[in-house]
């Protein structure tokens, strides 16, 4: 009997040769990520549990991103407690202003194909873009991993999603994942893994795969997995081993559901207020006036996203009453976009370019909205109150769509 990607990863990690969906197993954790919002609670629980040392300080990464730079005076408490934790337990992997956690974990080389990784953030599913099993946990569970290096999991069943063909030129991977979430529903993949394959996926950049893996949680998924290939190897700056190359779903693996799409059938879509699974074509909202556009986040703040927006905005101007906020996902991306002229094009079009970080996506800094305002945003959640008051309408879209909307001042 063949195996799914997640079954192969679990087997390799645990040494349990026949581990399969539904089994409860204890895995050895390869890496963990903690961000600034939850570090005070992780520290408190870790010490409450009676642990006195980290199971492996090299495997722990602390990233300040949600609160950087501080927007409220109390925010700095999180940095102070985080710094104390780093000092006390001998950690070396800390990023204080390098960008968003989910960008840095793969960009800085902390996650490799086949790894098992947990983070104190639901979008930890992102690392499936390089073929890692990664998922979000709460701070108590994180504290337990920090002390033991292990975590019990139920091996998830897998939904296989195959996409073949060539995408229309205005469609991005964001449109694919939004469409899938709409089709599955916000709980359609709960407790399950998503496994992506097909020629469209094979031809996609790692950055495009990241946008898809990032949003797997919006359908409830435990993780999302892409088979490591040459693009992955180049991105991770490594040679793939045979074991890593073999992280592909077998022909005779057992899937709980199989979904096929033709790439040519995709159109630009929006996740409409206030559910991520409320997916409608952009065309059905054309002309709706907007107040703000946000291009950034761990979903779509990568170089290719900024370049795509720049291609749309080149030589044009943002509508006078619209604020276009662009937030590169990391310092590296910021530098690259600066060096290749992308930031200049965006700035000339009238964009407000901010420091790398979570920025507006978590509703704390840089462009909070108020009652009756409408925003088109490239991030991953349009929940009530996410980017300001609960009477803000948030439409999620691709960078292509977001840039088009910024020019018109309307959904376009």
């Amino acid at each position, binding site marked *: 009997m063949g195996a799914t990607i997640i079954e192969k990863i679990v087997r390799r990690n645990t040494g349990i040769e026949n581990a399969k969906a539904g089994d409860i197993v204890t895995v050895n954790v390869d890496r963990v990520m903690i961000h600034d919002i939850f570090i005070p609670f992780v520290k408190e629980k870790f010490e409450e549990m009676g642990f006195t040392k980290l199971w492996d300080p090299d495997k722990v990464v602390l990233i300040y991103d949600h609160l950087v730079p501080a927007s409220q005076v109390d925010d700095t408490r999180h940095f102070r407690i985080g710094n104390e934790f780093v000092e006390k337990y001998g950690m070396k992997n800390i990023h204080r202003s390098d960008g968003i956690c989910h960008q840095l974990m793969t960009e800085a080389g902390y996650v490799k194909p086949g790894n098992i990784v947990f983070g104190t953030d639901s979008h930890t599913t992102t690392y499936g873009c390089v073929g890692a099993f990664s998922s979000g946990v*709460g701070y108590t569970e994180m504290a337990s991993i920090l002390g033991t290096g292990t975590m019990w999991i139920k091996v998830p069943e897998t939904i296989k999603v195959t996409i073949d063909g060539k995408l229309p030129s205005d469609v991005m991977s964001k449109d694919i994942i939004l469409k899938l979430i709409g089709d599955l529903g916000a709980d359609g993949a709960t407790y399950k893994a998503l496994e992506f394959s097909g020629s469209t996926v094979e031809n996609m950049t790692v950055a495009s795969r990241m946008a898809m893996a990032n949003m797997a949680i919006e359908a409830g998924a435990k993780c999302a997995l892409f088979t490591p290939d040459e693009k992955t190897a180049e991105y991770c700056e490594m040679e793939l081993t045979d074991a890593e190359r073999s992280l592909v779903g077998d022909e005779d693996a057992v899937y709980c559901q199989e979904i096929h799409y033709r790439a040519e059938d995709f159109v630009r879509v929006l996740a409409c207020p206030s559910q991520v699974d409320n997916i409608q074509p952009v065309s059905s909202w054309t002309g709706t006036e907007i107040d703000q556009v946000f291009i950034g986040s761990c979903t779509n703040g990568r170089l290719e996203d900024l370049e795509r927006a720049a291609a749309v905005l080149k030589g044009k101007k943002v509508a006078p009453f619209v604020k276009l906020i662009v937030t590169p996902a990391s310092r590296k991306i910021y530098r690259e976009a600066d060096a290749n002229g992308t930031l200049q094009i965006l700035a000339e079009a009238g964009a407000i370019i901010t420091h790398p970080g979570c920025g507006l996506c978590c509703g704390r800094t840089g462009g909070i909205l108020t009652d009756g305002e409408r925003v088109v945003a490239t991030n991953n959640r349009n929940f009530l109150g996410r980017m300001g008051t609960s009477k803000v309408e948030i439409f999620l879209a691709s960078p292509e769509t977001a840039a088009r909307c910024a020019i018109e001042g309307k959904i376009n």
Partner: protein
Amino acid sequence: MGTIFRFHTDVDTDQIIASQYLLYPTIDEMKAHTFESLDPTFAERVKVGDYVVAAENFGCGSSREQAPSVLKALGVKAVIAKSFARIFYRNAINIGLPVIVCRELYDAVEDQDEMELYLDQGIIKTGDKEFSCTRLPAQMQKILDQGGLIASLNEEE
């Protein structure tokens, strides 16, 4: 008996406790803002021993453990839903908040009805009706019985 506070489907963690309150140093300071965007009076009205009842996918969204924690801190005895989002479910068990799957209850009750949960028997009673609810997986029941993950880890040592 406890009072039912009845919520809809896809209640997300931002609705349970919004991001801006996560920076408060303690759960006790956060709890007054529970469900604020849906019902600003919830935190004042809910009493120790009351229940939250919801439809599908309760607790979807972020990994914030503050979501089950504020409910527990307000004295909510259990959350009973048709289904739960994965991270919320696991977090709730880890902090010792019972999360119970019952497919039938939601459609049979109104907001502010009275009910009682008999966890050991897996039974819910409300008015003259009785419902059976799904038991937790053994691994999770054990953690819950021990009072959450911290107590459970200390027990193992």
